[in-house]
């Protein structure tokens, strides 16, 4: 299923995932072979001769039905299948083994959802699902490219630095305990050792490989040894 991307006013990228349960279908066939459908009584006034129907514009033809026999029209009710979001037939979707008879193409469906769910006045793009990164490590650094999602490396580096800061928190806490113990024991040598261990942790966000990383993968690998 294609996705819809747009940039919000705050600069963040939103990715809209259309949910197939909202796609219009005319019926659903269950694994058992049963067909679920919703029928609508066609009013005789909607039914016109095929030759007349052919001459109608698309808008005029929308509410008319061609090629129904007159005797069928006047002797018994005529029904047609109504199109509804597919989850209306079952009150959920998907259902294992169930097959929908779609009333709109995937492109039509995604375009309809874009019209409905993208905030008004915002430009958007419809993109292939394959262009959305599967790795969400740097999700808040995503930006709209040309029919794709790209990473803003400046934002990625900030996210990565924050991740390293979070990683070092328990290690710093452990060192705090160690230095307290050494101080109380008046062990100056141990105090100096522990103080030396602080330095690489404090410098971790400035690890050189972070600034030289060119891709998100290179950035993820830029972790100083003290945090591995």
């Amino acid at each position, binding site marked *: 299923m294609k996705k*819809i991307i747009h940039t*919000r006013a705050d600069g*963040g*990228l*939103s*990715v*809209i*995932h*259309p*949910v*197939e*349960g*909202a796609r219009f279908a005319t019926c659903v066939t269950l694994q058992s072979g049963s*067909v679920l459908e*919703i*029928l609508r009584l066609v009013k005789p006034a909607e039914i016109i001769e095929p030759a007349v129907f052919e001459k109608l514009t698309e808008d005029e033809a929308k509410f008319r039905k061609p090629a129904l026999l007159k005797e069928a029209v006047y*002797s*018994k*009710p*005529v*029904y047609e299948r109504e199109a509804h*979001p597919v*989850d209306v037939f079952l*009150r*959920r*979707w*998907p259902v294992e083994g169930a097959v929908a008879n779609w009333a709109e193409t995937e492109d039509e469906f995604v375009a309809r*959802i874009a019209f*409905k*769910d993208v905030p008004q006045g915002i430009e958007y793009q419809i993109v292939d699902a394959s262009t*959305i990164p599967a790795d*969400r*490590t740097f*999700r*808040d650094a*995503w930006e709209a490219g040309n029919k794709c999602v790209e990473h803003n490396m400046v934002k990625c580096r900030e996210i990565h630095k924050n*991740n390293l800061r*979070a*990683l070092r*928190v*328990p290690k710093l806490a452990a060192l705090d305990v160690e230095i307290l113990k050494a101080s109380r024991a008046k062990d100056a040598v141990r105090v100096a050792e522990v103080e030396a261990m602080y330095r690489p942790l404090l410098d971790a966000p400035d690890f050189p490989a972070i600034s030289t990383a060119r891709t998100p993968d290179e950035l993820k690998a830029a972790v100083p040894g003290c945090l591995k």
Partner: protein
Amino acid sequence: MSYSFQTFSVGQVLTSSQMNQVEVNIRDHRLDGGSSLDMAAMFFASPGVYIGDSTTKSGTANALNVRRAAADSATIAHLVIEGSATHYISFGPSGSRQNMVFTNDSGGIYSFPGFTGDCIATQAEQEAGTSVNKVVAPGRQQYHPSAAKAWCMAQWDGNSAAGYNISSVTDNGAGNMTINYTTSFSSASYVPLLTANGYVGTPNAHQPMTIINSQAAGSVNAYCASSTTGALQDSTYMMFAAFGDQ
């Protein structure tokens, strides 16, 4: 084999006594010379018509009675109206009759439009939820105030696993999701419920904390955050349901 006949003239009006004696027997005229059997009989008795065999000349007055020999037991009696078109059973005073309509069009679907307004709860009646003498059709049960109007299970990246009445899920960033409805609520006053499945985050796994950030008639914006740091982070799944008036 013997028969007795009484002949009536065309247009002759029968007396009450004569009506009670009219009996039409349809017999099995078997060619093998065996004894004939009563196959069916129609009795005209004032007031009423009885269809059955010769032992069932009774029933409800002013009625068309279809009975079998053991009419009050499990023996089956059928009243068959056969044909390819629409069939009506009408009742009520002349001029204001109500019709039960049976059709077998469109692949064997039978409808009872005469009952739609009377016995089946309408959407409005289901929404009111007060009637105790109406039945609810499966296609309208979800209109009751107690029913969830929308629900879904989705990953925090926006990919939905299953749901109902959800048109799309918008991934706004880590731990930030908007759920959009196919059919909106009638106002922003409704109850969305949200929870997360799984721990949040990298690099340290924390307990998730879910928050409804904002809600509108057509959508709800939800957050998932680390209960330790408060930072927005993805969990594994988002579980969502919403209750209210559409």
